[in-house]
């Protein structure tokens, strides 16, 4: 059962991602990408990472993709400017090389990959125990980063910003 769910959602994630990068209309790309993130969230549930699955749906599929859709609609591309994938041999070669090297690296992992899944359950409590103790400094750094991003967004979006 678990295996069936894994392969189904993995296939769904790969298909949705493929359609995301190949769709001509950016709005369709954004919608396919929401599907891809939803499938990834389901895969996180299979790994018992419940909080991460929730955050994936809320932040990625919810907030970030809505932001993308907003900008796509504000820019409102003329249809003759829309184009799909531009297949270039060099890019295919680079991506293929990466995939082959990655496959080699994974098949050479050795005993690490034969580890059985542990009984870790990623609930909010389990993550908070670690995040607010051992990782409290990175946590504060991320909050500063978000503040900097807010300020940067405000400065960049002023209509008559000095060049």
């Amino acid at each position, binding site marked *: 059962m*678990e295996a069936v769910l894994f392969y189904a959602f*993995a296939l769904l994630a790969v298909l949705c991602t493929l359609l995301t990068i190949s769709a001509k209309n950016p709005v369709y790309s*954004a919608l396919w990408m929401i599907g891809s993130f939803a499938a990834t969230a389901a895969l996180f549930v299979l*790994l018992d990472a419940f909080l991460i699955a929730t955050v994936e749906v809320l932040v990625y599929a919810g907030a970030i993709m809505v932001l993308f859709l907003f900008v796509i609609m504000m820019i409102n*591309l003329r249809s003759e400017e829309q184009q799909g994938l531009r297949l270039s041999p060099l890019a295919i070669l680079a991506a293929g090389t990466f995939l082959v090297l990655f496959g080699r690296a*994974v098949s050479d992992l050795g005993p690490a990959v034969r580890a059985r899944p542990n009984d870790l359950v990623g609930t909010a409590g389990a993550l908070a125990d670690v995040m607010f103790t051992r*990782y409290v400094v990175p946590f504060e750094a991320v909050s500063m980063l*978000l503040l900097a*991003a807010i300020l*940067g967004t405000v400065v960049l979006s002023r209509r008559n910003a000095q060049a």
Partner: protein
Amino acid sequence: MIPLEHWLYLSGMLFTLGLCGVMMRRNVILVLMSVEIMLNAANVALVAFNKHLVATSPDGVSPDGQVFVFFTIAVAAAEAAVALVIAMALFRRLDTVNVDDVCNLRW
């Protein structure tokens, strides 16, 4: 039980698709979306590795990998916000979102 390799192959496939998107799309928004796909692929690998760690302490495995994913998502959100505003500014000034048309280092 799904072996760890299969999770990693999935992560690698998603990352490769994102890489293809970055290299083969010319629309700056699609390039950004492909970068998000690549970040997400790395998240899959992090959570899968965390699930297959071997416990070294009696309290079990600590969810370090999932905390990293949390931080990655926060960084991705900040990056998306700033990059989209840059795309908007680009469109307002140059009336294009094609990355090939943006080749000046200085305006």
